[in-house]
């Protein structure tokens, strides 16, 4: 068994939060550059160039990419041969506490916006720390700990949707609805998007899969040929909408569609679409 201390988890989450909010991932930058080179609308190409400028300014001058530094979503994959332990003072600390301590420190030291309210309906008072984070933990084989941090903006999250289909529908009907969801998101959610799609599982799993799908690289199509083709056909249909960068028209409404699936009930076909803005901020570390 390997032992990893909670302090190391906290420090890792802290640095991932800061890196995510200041440094656009290489694959997103490459996708924006490729889109700018292909755009047939000069105004849209100009917007894409401004978004690339923004990424350069953010990294060089240490100004966050976007003022909405998000609700922090943290995926922790714990190898079965890893023990997480408190190497310090308090044996009551949990993995969740360690992650939240990292988020609190990262958002404070990184001059990031604290965008979390404690009670959703009654008072909506800001917690002042950007915690609690949303933490998804899973056990996998091996002796590593994989931590992915996503700074997920509210504007695009607000446009995400879920629908329960009849199990007898054709794939095309599901695809048409996904395109409609993206169209409805439009200018409100900062296109060009990365579109995360979760198909199958149940009510809550499909939504989780749609978020998890966003973590797959933009240059990595689905390993299954059926879903790889569905991703590429959906991308073409979405870009045919003409919504364009920031909704001001153009060929680039999405950079990629990413699908994750799970087995489901014979009666069900749950589908979730998680809209992600062009400022697709996420970082991963493997301990």
């Amino acid at each position, binding site marked *: 068994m390997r032992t990893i201390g909670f302090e190391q988890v906290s420090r890792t989450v802290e640095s991932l939060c800061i890196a995510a909010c200041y440094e656009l991932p290489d694959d997103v930058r490459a996708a924006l550059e490729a889109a700018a080179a292909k755009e047939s609308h000069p105004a849209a190409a100009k917007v894409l160039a401004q978004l690339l400028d*923004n990424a350069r300014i953010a990294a060089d001058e*240490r*100004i966050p*990419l976007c*003022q909405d530094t998000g609700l922090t979503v943290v995926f922790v994959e714990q190898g079965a041969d890893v023990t997480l332990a408190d190497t310090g003072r308090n044996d009551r600390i949990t993995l969740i506490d360690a992650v939240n301590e990292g988020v609190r420190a990262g958002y404070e030291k990184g*001059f990031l916006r604290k*965008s979390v309210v404690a009670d959703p309906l009654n008072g909506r008072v800001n917690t002042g720390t950007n915690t609690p984070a949303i933490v998804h933990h899973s056990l996998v084989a091996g002796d590593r700990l994989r931590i992915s941090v996503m700074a997920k903006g509210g504007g695009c999250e607000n446009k995400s949707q879920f629908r329960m289909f009849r199990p007898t529908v054709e794939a095309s009907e599901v695809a048409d609805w996904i395109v409609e969801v993206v169209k409805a998101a439009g200018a*409100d959610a*900062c296109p060009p998007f990365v579109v995360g799609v979760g198909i199958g599982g149940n009510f809550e799993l499909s939504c989780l899969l749609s978020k998890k799908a966003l973590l797959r690289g933009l240059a990595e199509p689905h390993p299954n040929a059926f879903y790889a083709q569905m991703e590429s056909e959906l991308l073409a249909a979405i870009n045919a909408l003409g919504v364009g960068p920031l909704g001001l028209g153009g060929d680039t409404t999405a950079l990629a569609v990413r699908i994750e699936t799970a087995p489901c009930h014979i009666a069900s076909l749950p589908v979730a679409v998680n809209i992600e803005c062009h400022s697709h901020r996420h970082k991963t570390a493997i301990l």
Partner: protein
Amino acid sequence: MIELRAPLADNDVRRLKAGDEVVLCGVVYTARDMAHKRLCAALDDGQELPIDLNGAVIYFVGPTPARPGAVIGAAGPTTSSRMDPFSPKLIAHGLRATMGKGYRSDEVRQALKEYGAVHLATLGGAGALLSKHIVGAEIVAYEDLGTEAIRRLEVVDFPAVVAYDAAGGSVYDMIRDRSGV
């Protein structure tokens, strides 16, 4: 490219057409969800507002904390439609431009027409770039709201597009008509 000076003169607002690119100089106020709710509640109660709405521009933004020595942190637009229930009342009381990202409701469009105001769209998700056009920032109301407090910003050559004009035109309608989808 049209240069606009804020607070806005009525004539400058009325000549703007949907799709025009503008650069904004002068004073704009920040406000987002909770500040809008409070401003409208103050109007309903007959109280004096903490800002002068005559010819004013309200920018829908909640910036990141400024680093020591910096004017402001990242400061890009938030989604405009969340302010749809509140904007018509503020426009009726003198507000002449709102600035954010995305679509506005029919009720807001009607208010823009009725009172001669516009909605500007600026660069969503470009908070670092846009912060370079902000040369002054001070909190003027609702400090307890933190990032959602009302700030008085001094802006220089702040880039935006006229998304909805005072004659009922919309850049988003133009794009939809052009793409036919």
